[in-house]
């Protein structure tokens, strides 16, 4: 029995060291400033693992989110945006929605206490979306965690909950129109840029990579504006709780190798 635990700790050590070495090497190359994740496949993962309830999938998904945030920060990625809950997801069963809301309560509470990951990297947590759709106590916790980290502007962790991209674009348009109504802006000042500046993600740099797990090949109303230009959309076949650093590695390599390719062409287009 001691033998097996010795072997497993040697394996863990080797695994961790290889991961650290890989991150050390890769961070010498170009690192994306803003990466988005669609956390899809929690329920199917639970089924695959033989769990009796989808709650297991969401729980594992939350743990994996922390791991992903960790290696993203270690790589030097400045902003991480995740699709945690869609406005459409309210249509799911009451039980599942209640469980997810409880996960958010706990997550926001954990993040607003002394948290080494958040404090160590000085991560600003932003909860993006139509917050008024959330239960009031979850809303309060969301505002609390945002207030606690509002002075952190080096790194951002954007939690989209509850969010749809069309809702975001509509809100941006609404704010633009309101400014014109109040004579603070001219109608001709409504431009691509003015809409961009009113999006929920405007504090973060442009989206470089958008990753969707679970093999679905659509964006499902997530970051449509941000992903529609100069963004590498990667559609992975594994479920979200299975997204490890090694599965992310090829995505990072493609970014490092091809980033200049699309940027050069875009400059040609703009001429």
């Amino acid at each position: 029995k001691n033998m097996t635990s010795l072997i497993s700790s040697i394996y863990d050590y080797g695994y961790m060291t290889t991961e650290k070495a890989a991150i050390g090497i890769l961070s010498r190359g170009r690192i994306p400033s803003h990466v988005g994740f669609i956390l899809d496949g929690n329920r199917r993962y639970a089924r695959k693992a033989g769990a009796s309830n989808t709650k297991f999938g969401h729980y594992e998904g939350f743990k994996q989110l922390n791991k992903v945030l960790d290696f993203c920060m270690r790589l030097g990625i400045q902003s991480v945006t995740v699709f945690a809950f869609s406005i459409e997801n309210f249509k799911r069963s009451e039980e599942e929605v209640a469980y997810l809301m409880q996960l958010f309560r706990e997550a926001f509470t954990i993040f607003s206490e002394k948290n080494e990951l958040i404090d160590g990297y000085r991560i600003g947590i932003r909860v993006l979306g139509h917050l008024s759709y959330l239960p009031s106590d979850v809303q309060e916790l969301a505002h609390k965690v945002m207030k606690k980290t509002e002075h952190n502007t080096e790194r951002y962790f954007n939690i989209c909950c509850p969010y749809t991209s069309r809702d975001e674009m509509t809100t941006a348009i609404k704010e633009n129109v309101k400014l014109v109504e109040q004579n603070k802006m001219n109608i001709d000042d409504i431009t691509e840029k003015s809409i961009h500046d009113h999006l929920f993600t405007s504090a973060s740099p442009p989206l470089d990579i958008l990753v969707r797990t679970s093999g679905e090949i659509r964006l499902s109303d997530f970051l449509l504006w941000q992903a529609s230009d100069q963004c590498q959309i990667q559609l992975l076949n594994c479920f979200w709780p299975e997204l490890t650093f090694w599965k992310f590695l090829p995505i990072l390599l493609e970014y490092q190798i091809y980033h200049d390719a699309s940027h050069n062409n875009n400059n040609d287009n703009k001429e």
Partner: protein
Amino acid sequence: MAATVTIVDTTIPKRLTTSSKLEPGQSLQLISDLAVDLPPPTIRTKTTKSNVIVDVLCRILLHLIHIGYLTFIIYKTLRNMLIDLYHQHLVTSTDTEELIRFDKAQLTKIPKHLSILISSELLHERTMKEWDIILDDLCRVSCWAWEFGIEELSVFDASGELKSLGIDVYKRQSTMLHQWMTNKEKRGLKFSIVSAEDGRPSISRAAQNIVKQKIPSENIDIALVDKFVHECSEISDPELMLVYDALPHSYISLDGFPPWHIRLTEFINKGTHHRLDYMTFSSTLLQYSKVEQRFGR
């Protein structure tokens, strides 16, 4: 050589003591497990002495890894090309209409609107002759699409090069389609060419139109914006998008496609294909329909 980074492993924060409000009837065991269960983060502390040799070594290793990955991509691309050639060989019929009939019978769903995105990645290498070939391919594809029962076909070329060819494009396409339709039951196919100016800029135009129509900001909701965006736009929301003629990679890049329209669009990456031949086209439809491709009879 000493490593340049010291990692500090930290322990998890203490368990939660807040009295969080639970939904009625729910007794979730989450509270005690979650705080303890989270994996420890690893924070880098600042390095006091940077070791130049390790840095150079890492950069060399990085370049080697890049070369290795590129080799892997090239191998995959060549392998897929060979497989495609083999499949072409399997197909016994040269009559495209017969092939379409065979493939169509296997489809469980067909997109109403198919959009084809011509990648901008190889833009600056394209000659007028190559644009002509692209146009030719597109006209033929419009006939096949019509045969499959697709109602709308749009082509997105970010640069606007295709759009600037003007009315000739539409004439060429409708002529070929009309010829294809002889002796068949007549039905329409909407064909549009879209470029980057129809992307994000058209959303700001829609917003300006909302202002011009004096709609108060409180009345602006998703349904209203949807109406205005589609009024400014020639195309409907595509169910399926085929991306082709790009560099070999697994990601797809949309180069400025209208963002409002792609909410539920499914994307299929044929970036390594540089011609829109029947195999490329049909395999995309079959993949969308989640059906295995069976070649020939």
